[in-house]
């Protein structure tokens, strides 16, 4: 399989998985690194393009952000907000404890 110049290592996969809140078993780190490197090697063709002085494109529409006026026009729909919650109580979302 093609190797990108800056290939990801098993350690990188671990870090990326952690950042993404995905669990990867230790014995899967290498295979996933190989898998990602196959894709990254292909992506590295981008290095051939002359991008000197080229502005990055962040949107397919060339406009300024439209803005809304400062009116209270939403909210007040707690039922709707909580309706799909795995757990809620007394108007709150209930989630696993976020502090030790």
């Amino acid at each position, binding site marked *: 399989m093609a190797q990108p110049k800056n290939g990801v290592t098993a350690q990188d996969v671990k870090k990326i998985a952690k950042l993404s809140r995905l669990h990867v078993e230790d014995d899967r780190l290498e295979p996933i690194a190989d898998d990602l490197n196959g894709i990254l090697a292909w992506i590295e063709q981008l290095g051939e393009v002359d991008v000197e002085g080229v502005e990055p494109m962040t949107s397919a529409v060339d406009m300024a952000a439209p803005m809304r006026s400062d009116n209270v*026009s939403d909210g007040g729909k707690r039922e709707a907000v909580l309706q799909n919650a795995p757990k809620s*109580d007394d108007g709150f979302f209930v989630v696993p404890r*976020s502090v030790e």
Partner: protein
Amino acid sequence: MFIAPRIADKKDWITTETGDWEIIIGLEVHAQVASESKLFSGSATDYGSAPNTQVSLVDAGMPGMLPVVNEFCIEQAVKTGFGLNAKINLFSRFDRKNYFYVDLPQGYQISQFEHPIVGEGEIEILPIDGDGNVGEPVNVGIERLHLEQDAGKSVHDLSPDETYVDLNRCGVALMEIVSKPDMRSPEEASAYVEKLRGIVRALGTCDGDMEKGNLRADVNVSVRRPGGELGTRCEIKNVNSMRFIRQAINYEARRHIDILEAGGEIDQETRLFDSVKGETRTMRSKEDAHDYRYFPDPDLLPIKLEQAFVDRIKSELPEMPDVRKARFMSDYGLPEYDARILTADKVKADFYETVISSGVGGRDPKIASNWTMVELFGALNKAGVELEDSPVSADALGGLIDRILDDTISGKIAKGVFEKMFAGEGTADEIIDRDGLKQVTDMGAIEAMVDDAIANNAAQAEKAKENPKLLGFFVGQVMKASQGKANPKAVNEILRKKLGL
């Protein structure tokens, strides 16, 4: 790398057995924009509402929901930028800051990273020490101001093993004002926050209420040998009072010095301030530091401000605290101290100017300043009441001052009247009428009282003719006889005449 050329005043150095240290401080202040609705949704921003009642589907991060920018918030950021004497960026952009947390429904915070709406600026602060001594003015550089979303609130005490999440605050607009590391003492840091608070309140861009958390500070602290190489800094998150800011800095600086003197190294980390124990503790270390993966939010387009929009905001700016202070000194002849106290906060300054100018107007500025600062602020402070809720309005206080200036009552009687006004018993005139406090200005009546006093104290009167210092005794007698209501000036004049002084 931050460059921090200024060396602290020697009085701010921390001297230990190994020598002198100075503290390097930079602040990131989060000021909640005083908007009705959120930065990217139409939900309300009221404080203290029932949980999740001010949450839209956008705020809750529901699938397919999209942000739309609140123009008012953009305007407030620009206004604040002017207040910080800073560069307004006509082009700015919103980026996503990616991290997971239970009070961050989208899994990212929309913030401004590469292109903030406001660039570099500078403000002047006046540090004041614990004894009220005013130090030399210090210029503090502003690195930037950017807009971002606030997070929701996690409640940990409703269940032992779960967290309750309220998203009411989620998405409320914040201005993050980042200073340069230009402060060198806890007093400078709190003076800086006080100054920022004064600026945003003068502009009306933020309520500045630290108790409600709509102004809060992250404090970056490091220490170094005076003028030496910069040390490693720690960031103390979410410190929410002036006193805590000073405490946290003092504690943190001492902690750094202790570690360094013991031959240790400072870990760059994020810390929390425990206001009960008065100490800071580790929140997360550098190893756990997030990789936020900022990138331009593809749901939003760049903010491109028209110069005319910016110019209009500039032309509509209210008077800033520094300018107002200078005007109070030059136009009203107030001493620096009075002018500074009165203009540090817009509400105070407005109140004072109403006292001078309401009703008939033209009241003596110095007398008005004394009554406002000493009597009213003193009474409010004692009662723990905010000026906004003062039982004595500026108009009413002006009415009381009028009665002093037109000799209806003496200053001494006025203090009693004020107390009754403060207790809600009515206006100055009502109380003066009701209690019959009007000064006696009838010359005939005063003369009769003077004659009585001289007649009853003939021996003293003889002595007084030789020794004018005894005049006060007779003034006292007459005032006593009039129950304090005789006009002191008239009493004096008549006594002098009768005693041939």
